[in-house]
């Protein structure tokens, strides 16, 4: 059976996955940076190394993500490109057979996608401009507080007092989060406010489209327990987190080979 690679070249991170039929052989993530083609190559190489397969051993590469078209440049020699929402739907449907809706919370863009039993996209809702960069914001906030994203999530779960930051945009939310810290508010409560802010933003977007069960969550932020704590109650639906949340696009790319 042939080995295929999926590349999801996003705003912040580039994700590579290697699959043999239904089996996930290896994966790797690198920051995208400016040189998006180099990032893709690196991610691919890392993935290949972990599996011990050579570039020649690949039957084909499919790319998705915001920079997917750039991958057509040499030396990658890709088979085809596929739109984010198409890949996300395919990937989510593969990772969770009974799922019909995926909420993808990425670095710069969030979207919710409804699809049929074969993972074909039926409807999509994407965030508006003012909600851009939520993922990036989450990372920079962790940095501002001086902890890792993982730690921020754990910290938030220890919050005891409810405080809020503006639900308008990442820029003013950050400014207000720091504002709160300057008032001497406990950092756990600030971290919680940040997580809730993002969850509320995503939920607001989701209510515009009918979300068909079962609902799964993908994207880097799906790993934040603090954030996921809020999502179900906000959209009044059960959600489950995909096993490879940040790789759903890359996997879907392979599925669309």
């Amino acid at each position, binding site marked *: 059976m042939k080995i295929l690679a999926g590349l999801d070249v996003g705003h912040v991170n580039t994700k590579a996955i290697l699959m043999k039929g239904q089996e996930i052989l290896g994966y790797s993530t690198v920051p995208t940076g400016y040189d998006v083609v180099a990032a893709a190559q690196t991610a691919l190489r890392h993935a290949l190394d972990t599996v011990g397969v050579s570039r020649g051993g690949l039957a084909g590469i499919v790319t998705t993500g915001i920079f997917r078209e750039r991958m057509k440049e040499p030396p990658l020699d890709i088979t085809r490109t596929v739109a984010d929402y198409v890949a996300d739907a395919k990937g989510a449907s593969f990772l969770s057979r009974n799922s019909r809706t995926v909420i993808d919370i990425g670095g710069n863009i969030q979207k919710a996608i409804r699809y049929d039993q074969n993972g074909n996209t039926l409807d999509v809702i994407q965030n508006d401009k*003012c909600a851009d960069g939520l993922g990036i914001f989450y990372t920079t906030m962790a940095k501002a507080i001086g902890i890792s994203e993982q730690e921020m999530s754990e910290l938030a779960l220890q919050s005891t007092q409810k405080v809020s930051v503006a639900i308008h945009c990442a820029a003013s939310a950050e400014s207000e989060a720091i504002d709160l810290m300057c008032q001497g508010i406990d950092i756990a409560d600030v971290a919680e406010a940040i997580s809730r802010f993002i969850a509320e933003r995503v939920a607001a977007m989701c209510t515009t489209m009918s979300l068909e069960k079962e609902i799964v969550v993908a994207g880097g932020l799906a790993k934040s327990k603090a954030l996921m704590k809020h999502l179900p109650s906000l959209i009044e639906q059960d959600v489950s987190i995909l096993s490879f949340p940040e790789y759903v696009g890359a996997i879907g790319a392979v599925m669309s080979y």
Partner: protein
Amino acid sequence: MMKEGPDTIIERFHSISENPQEYAKSRQGKGQLLAGYMCTHVPEEILYAAGIIPVRILSSHVSQAMTRSYMHETYCSFSHDCAYQGLAHNYDFLDLIVTSSSCIHMGEAFNVWVRFAGFQEKSFLIPYPHIIETKPAAAFMAASFEEFKQFLEKFVKKSITDGDIERAIRVCNQTRRLLKRLWEFLRSESSPITGPEVATVTLASQLMDKEEYNPMLEQLIQSLEVEPGKAPSGVRLMVTGGACDDPGIFDLIEHLNYSAKLIFIDSCTATRYFWFEVPENRSDKLQAIAEGYIRRIPCPAKDNVPGTGEKKRFRFIQQFIEEFRPDGVVFLYQRFCSPQPMDVVALKPILDKLGIPSTELELDTTVPITQFRTQLEALVEVIKGVTP
């Protein structure tokens, strides 16, 4: 029995403005009809005449993102918050929701209630002029008040007599006179009541049954008249701008690192709400109400003196500056509000000419206290001329 001191009465007003729903429900429990209203251009007199208590819809102050998928981002947070009150079903108990053609943003909040919060069948929009200064405006207002009256008569299944309206006019005028007297205290260097307290009492007047409110306020004023004044303030600050029902901001002004006092608020949640009276004992009651509402401090969204580019609101502001003698002015308005900044741009040069320093605070759902504190303290330092 012993007379209550001002603090006790103020506290009662405070707790009512903190839990408006609770208060409203308690009235409803006694079989009282309640109508929510979204803009202060709704003629409360007509509701009162119909035996309905008007309850102003104000913000929840909870951070709410859900409204973003019902109303565009770029409507002000006050309108979003008022829309949220409907979507969150915080006011499902109301018998009616009413508004008058207001600014577009609050109009949208009303639309959300009607369209998505289940008020379709129990709502009324009063067509109201956007330019209140023209001659034809008064006649038009009277005509659409008549329609409103007829709608209410159907709703309460009884006719509204001129007597009913005259009584209602007197009740509302009484509230306005009392509130004016209350605000007059702030003109004095050593007022027995603080600006934030006055603001809270004023908010309560928009949420309470005025028949109950008036005697309470009367009692408060009497008790204040015998109170010794509080210590004179260092710096007197006047607030001018848009709807703001967050007492936190007014308290902030009085809890700076310096002694500063809030001595006036020009906004539709404060003086613009009541700084006028409706002529009494007129034969044509609705015409009288129209005339009264035309005399108001105009809302920036409706302020246009025909034939000139002049803004009537500025005359009032200049008058208030003379009477209340602020050392500094705080422009406090909702981010995304469209009319307010159009006034600020024209008002600022006037203040500069008067040598009154000012700063702008941009309101959003949540308030950046630290930044506001810094801006306000910096304003005071500029006024005091702090220097090494």
